[in-house]
């Protein structure tokens, strides 16, 4: 007899469902949480760590917290008769100061109106389903900053002039970070293109600009903008203090942004440039329609990283006597009327939650955008 060497399949094997052990909650737990000894140990330790951190936090913020009160006395353990956590009345009483600084209280509607306009326009811009994106973009990036400027600064249409020195708290944080974010991205893109330009002069200037601003600490930039710049400017030039800081922050952030964007540009294969050129697209159209959309998509994590860093770095303006959210907070700590053992922690917890909310929102939106723009490459 001869062994049969040839084999011909008569019918195709039908697909079958995976075995039971790999499915459902138990399957997931067995594979993902307790797959091996090390895995099981890590799972248990992580859970324990979470409990150790979470429980005191919840106690401090909610269970032991004081919710009503008029002064420090209401937040003292001696008065309350139990251990005291967060002293929320402190935040409630100082809330306006944290939000608006020393903006005149009868004019605060102007800040709120600006917030409302900005939020409404931004919401329409970031929700993909809302139509008229081009119009909205013009309104948000072109019209809104002008409206916001006149609303906040005033001096026109019968609006009382409010000097930027009286601005503070969340208002300053938002003005600096939003301006920084919105201006630094296009500026960074231009610098990145400049650094990759075939024209040596443009390239050199871009490199010098980027390396200069990246080489200097933000604190130095802020000091320079605030105290040194006026000495160099002609006497008749008077730049507003906040504006000087804004310019410094924007240029600083743009240099970082440029390097992030350059990273994205380097990830685009040469063939994409050639494909665009062969179709007759000129430089700006090639960049704007083919290269940058892909490059920016690649570096969304890096861009958002820069945005978040910038948002938190705004607090450094404190050292040039501009009081952002954290600055107002520290000023409020000095109020003897609210000096309690937990005032400091309450304030920082409050600020922390605000910063976290903004940063986390940016992060999640970026993740959502990444998924939405993914076209499977």
């Amino acid at each position: 007899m001869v062994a049969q060497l040839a084999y011909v399949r008569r019918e195709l094997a039908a697909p079958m469902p995976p075995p039971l052990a790999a499915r459902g909650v138990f399957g997931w737990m067995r594979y993902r949480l307790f797959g091996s000894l090390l895995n099981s140990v890590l799972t248990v330790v992580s859970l324990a760590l979470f409990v150790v951190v979470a429980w005191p936090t919840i106690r401090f913020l909610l269970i032991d917290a004081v919710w009503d009160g008029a002064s420090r006395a209401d937040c003292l353990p001696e008065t309350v008769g139990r251990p005291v956590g967060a002293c929320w009345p402190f935040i409630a009483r100082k809330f306006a100061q944290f939000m608006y600084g020393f903006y005149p209280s009868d004019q605060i509607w102007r800040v709120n109106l600006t917030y409302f306009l900005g939020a409404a326009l931004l919401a329409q811009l970031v929700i993909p389903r809302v139509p008229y994106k081009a119009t909205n973009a013009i309104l948000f990036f072109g019209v809104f900053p002008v409206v916001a400027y006149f609303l906040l600064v005033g001096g026109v249409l019968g609006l009382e002039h409010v000097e930027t020195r009286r601005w503070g708290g969340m208002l300053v944080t938002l003005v600096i970070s939003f301006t920084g974010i919105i201006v630094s991205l296009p500026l960074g893109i231009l610098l990145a293109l400049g650094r990759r330009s075939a024209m040596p002069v443009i390239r050199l200037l871009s490199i010098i600009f980027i390396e200069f601003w990246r080489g200097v600490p933000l604190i130095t930039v802020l000091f320079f903008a605030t105290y040194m710049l006026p000495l160099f400017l002609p006497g008749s030039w008077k730049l507003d203090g906040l504006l000087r800081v804004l310019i410094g922050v924007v240029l600083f952030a743009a240099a970082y942004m440029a390097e992030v964007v350059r990273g994205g540009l380097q990830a685009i294969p040469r063939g994409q440039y050639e494909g665009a050129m062969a179709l007759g697209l000129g430089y700006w159209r090639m960049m704007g329609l083919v290269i940058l959309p892909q490059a920016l998509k690649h570096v969304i994590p890096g861009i958002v990283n820069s945005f978040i860093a910038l948002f938190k770095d705004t607090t450094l303006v404190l050292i040039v006597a501009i009081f952002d959210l954290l600055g107002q907070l520290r000023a409020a700590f000095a109020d003897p009327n609210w000096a309690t053992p937990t005032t400091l922690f309450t304030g920082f917890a409050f600020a922390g939650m605000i910063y976290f909310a903004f940063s986390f929102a940016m992060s999640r939106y970026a993740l959502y955008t990444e998924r939405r723009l993914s076209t499977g490459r």
Partner: protein
Amino acid sequence: MDQDAQSPAPGAPRARDIRTTKNEVAVDIIDVSKWFGEFHVLRDVSLKVMRGERIVICGPSGGGKSTLLRCINRIEDWQQGRVIVDGVEITADLKTIDEVRREVGMVFQSFNLFPHLTVLENCTLAPIWVRGLPKREAETIARHYLARVRIPEQADKYPAQLSGGQQQRVAIARALCMQPKIMLFDEPTSALDPEMVKEVLDTMVELAMDGMTMVVVSHEMGFARQVANRMVLMDAGQIVEVNQPEQFFSNPQHERTRLFLSQILH
């Protein structure tokens, strides 16, 4: 070296017998030299391509085939010589480069589709932004050409969702949407799985049948026999032989051609 179009052989009605005009020059490459640093990649290359003519360039890798092809739409520049495309001499003036690129379509080995755009958007991008066509009109044209390359149903997919052969056919449609007078193909089937080569070649044969002026860098000798008016063999940055396909394959004149053919035709 004979640079004029060869008159087609009498008899057999094959694709390469179909000609629109014989006497107009579509591409005129005159004494072009190019260096990559110290390396002399193109050495005094001259080639005339007549309107409606289909030229297949083959030769060993590193011989300068692709480089020569890429000079025709100035994706690659050169240091000496002249290139005249459709009556327009390409100079350092960006306007002439734009003008030529509008009339010359190109298909690449690696497709170079834009992955962030759908198939339809890939095809309408240049007609809208370069030709200034209204979106609707550009889409009508794009759907027409997608139907011609037999993938009208893929219009709303992204390139990554298509097979290699389908991607290359989209790339051909994308180039055709600009309604070019001349099409350049840079090894269009080299990156494809064997099963997908035929669908792309069939598309190219159809294009040739319609009288498109084509310059093709390819080693698909079956395709070359079927559609080429003239064969060009390049080696070491020079044109070694230009000949009619019959002559080229059955009675190559240059020793290098003979060697090359013996290597690829087993």
